[in-house]
């Protein structure tokens, strides 16, 4: 690697150097990393996806709107998509279909519904394997899929995003919406976890 002569500076220092050379430009546009971080903490939340799921479980008309046009339906909650994310498809898990999402080329995610992706979603192992051996990968991750259930893997290769609509645990039928939202996990929105209430 001829281009890498000096040992690389630690990541914190490389990050700080990039920040430094952008300081004036950012200031001129009224932007800062701290403010961006605050905005992300308030807006990039799996709790958003959880609220949408809880509504879909309790309101059949909303569920239909959500499956037909995800972007318009989440706007009913005041949830938007970043400019480059042009649409979101909501993928309904059923007893016969299990959906799971990935981005094999980088790590694209519906961040306003799922939050920043976890490291394992960005790792080479998940991106390489889940398209080719989804059943083994899901089993290893604690989410085995029955042999007669169809697995659908969605590769986020363009600027459409995906969110899984997990199955509602039967014992939660009749719960109020906010209590339902509290059991919906980020991992279930990616499609690598099933929801239950007993013992979390």
């Amino acid at each position, binding site marked *: *690697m001829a*281009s890498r002569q*000096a*040992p*690389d*500076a630690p*990541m914190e*220092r*490389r*990050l700080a*150097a*990039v*920040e430094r*050379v*952008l300081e004036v*430009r*950012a200031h001129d546009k009224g932007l*800062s990393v701290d403010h961006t*971080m605050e905005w*992300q903490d308030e807006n990039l939340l799996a709790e958003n996806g959880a609220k949408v799921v809880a509504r879909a479980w309790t309101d059949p008309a909303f569920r239909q709107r959500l499956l037909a046009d995800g972007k318009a339906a989440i706007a009913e909650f005041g949830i938007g998509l970043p400019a*480059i994310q*042009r*649409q979101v*498809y909501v993928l309904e898990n059923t007893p016969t279909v299990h959906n799971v999402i*990935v981005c*094999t*080329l*980088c*790590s694209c995610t519906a961040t306003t519904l799922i*939050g920043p*992706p*976890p*490291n*394992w979603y960005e*790792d*080479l*192992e*998940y991106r*390489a*394997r889940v*398209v*080719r*051996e*989804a*059943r083994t990968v899901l089993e*290893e*991750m604690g989410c085995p899929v029955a042999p007669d259930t*169809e*697995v*659908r*893997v969605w*590769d986020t*290769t*363009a*600027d*459409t995003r995906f969110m899984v609509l997990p199955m509602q645990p039967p014992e939660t039928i009749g719960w109020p919406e906010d209590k339902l939202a509290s059991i919906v996990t*980020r*991992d279930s929105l990616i499609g*690598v*976890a099933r929801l239950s209430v007993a013992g979390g």
Partner: protein
Amino acid sequence: MDGMHDLGGRQGFGKVAFAPKASPFQAPWEKRAYALRSMVSQLGVYNIDEYRHAVERMDPRHSVSAGYYERVITAIATLLVEKGVTTKAELEAIAGGGFALSHPGAGGRTNAPDRKSFQRGERVRVRNDFVSGHIRLPGYIRGKIGVVMYEGPLTPFPDAHAHGLEAADEPTYDVRFRSEDLWPGGAESAEIHVAVFQSYLEAVA
């Protein structure tokens, strides 16, 4: 480009390092890098396709050994140098050490002049294109036949947009493949849905 980033279907990897409800960030600098990337995208120095291509252009050994947020910082720094915002020497002086950047890239290409519209249910073949610049086509579907499920939103053609060429908006199609067709005899049974730009597709005769 057929780079290290194009991972779908590659073999030899171990288990996914999964922990339920894992934090997205392993260190404070990773969270800061995530915010920095979002902030820089609002400065108008480069677009999303240029950014993705800068990640893809990392030296293969650097790319696979770096974590996600090292790839993020490397790509941003590479573009800031290429766009004349700073220099490698300046970044290294401030960082107090080396600052490996991505390699220069090849040229891009414009939208396919003979691209066609497709209907839901239509069978399509992914063109057998080998592109040295940026492309959003995972190699595992190249030359394969699938079925159009949905017409997705209009998006600037990334192969041009990443290279400063005129990038017309075109639809992306959700195309359904069978894993058994993508890797005959070498995959577990599944439907694989890929969002495919119109220019990457041709009709099946």
